[in-house]
């Protein structure tokens, strides 16, 4: 096992598990209108993808998504699927060596697509219109998660900077 893989496993174990616990315990306290909340786990998946590449990003998304699903009443896989894709897409930025504002614009798109896909799968179980979900959940959550991503990235930059 090379140094990079060891560091990846360390980041996945510490930041990944911490993010699932934060999502479960602390995120409900920062909800807005009891509905809008950031996805801390997605933030970690995006940062891992950007730092380590597509393979590690999609694996982190899949594993953390499965853990999230296991702790809910939802079918397992419903979060793992969009998170694996988000991790993969974020990892592609590592290959393309993107930095700065452009990175954040792509992140916003990935967060939106993640939310869109999650609620798109979920809507088969819901009896409310998807249009309502888009403006009441997907857009606000995308904005909130982006803000939290910026805060997280600023405070943990040294761990996610490319070598």
């Amino acid at each position, binding site marked *: 096992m090379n140094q990079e893989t060891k560091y990846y496993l360390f980041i996945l174990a510490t930041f990944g*598990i911490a993010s*699932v*616990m934060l*999502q*479960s*315990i602390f*995120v*409900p306290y920062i*909800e807005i*209108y*009891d*509905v809008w*909340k950031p*996805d801390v*786990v997605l933030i970690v998946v995006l940062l891992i993808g950007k730092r380590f*590449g*597509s*393979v590690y990003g*999609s*694996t982190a*998304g*899949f594993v953390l*998504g*499965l*853990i*999230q*699903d*296991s*702790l*809910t*009443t*939802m*079918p*397992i*896989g*419903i*979060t*793992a*699927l969009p998170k*694996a*894709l988000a991790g*993969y897409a974020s*990892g592609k930025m590592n290959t393309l060596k993107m930095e700065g504002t452009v990175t954040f614009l792509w992140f916003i798109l990935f967060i939106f697509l993640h*939310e869109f896909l*999650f609620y798109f*799968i*979920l809507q088969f*179980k*819901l*009896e*409310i219109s998807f249009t*309502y*979900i888009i403006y*009441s*959940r997907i857009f606000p*959550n995308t904005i909130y998660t982006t803000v939290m991503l910026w805060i997280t990235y600023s405070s943990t930059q040294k761990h996610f900077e490319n070598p």
Partner: protein
Amino acid sequence: MTPILNFISHYHQAFLVTLYVILSFIFITSSDTPLVEGMRSSTLTIFGTMQEQVDDASSYFGLEEENRALRKENTRLAYENHQLQDALLENIRLKKLLQFEYKVNYELIPAKVIGNSPQNLITGLLLSTEELHKIEKNAAVMTSEGLVGKIVKISGDYAICQIMLDPNSRVSGKVQRNRQLGMIKWDGANGLLLDHIPNTVEILVGDVIFSSGYSQIYPANLKIGVVNSVETNTNDLFKTIYVTPAVNFNKLEEVFIYNPIKTDEPGN
């Protein structure tokens, strides 16, 4: 073989993510298989243990304030208790006169809320109690305010409770004033809907909704919520009735699990 291996090696990233997508679909469509259930159980036990430690540590900082609030509540309840004792004695005397037998055929098992379901859409609570071995899947969960939901997964000392705001949750409810039956479900935001109430039935804002008891899961007469708006749809058979839940799902720290005592058990 070499060209195929070269092809796979070249596109290994895309192959891996495709594999994850396929696996996710398989898991979504096979939620009740032993593999998926085992995965849920082990994750719940590991994370339940960790979250309980974190929850204990974080609750330590609010102990002084909580202690003050509990002392105040204790004083109020003690005062109420003194007043109710008279009523209870009178009730017992009257029951004796009428030859009523007072029997409690259930027990309430306290459980600590150690976290919420870690998703964008909160659909469940993570519970912890050492008495989980006594209860079975689908046991009703409540607080003094009213009905919370039901247990959907138990693993060791930890359980997942599906709350009424879960899109899959359905509870049979009745209107206290006119005994009209309906179906309680999530409204898509942070409240509940009372469904299957015909347009011809009068429902008023402020009507209280209780569980009907016509279910093997939820006992009767548990408060569900209060009607906050009623819309009559001329093109539809049923009214749209919005209900404010009796329980504030965001501020739950402890809940009680309803455990009916089987009458054929020895010692009951």
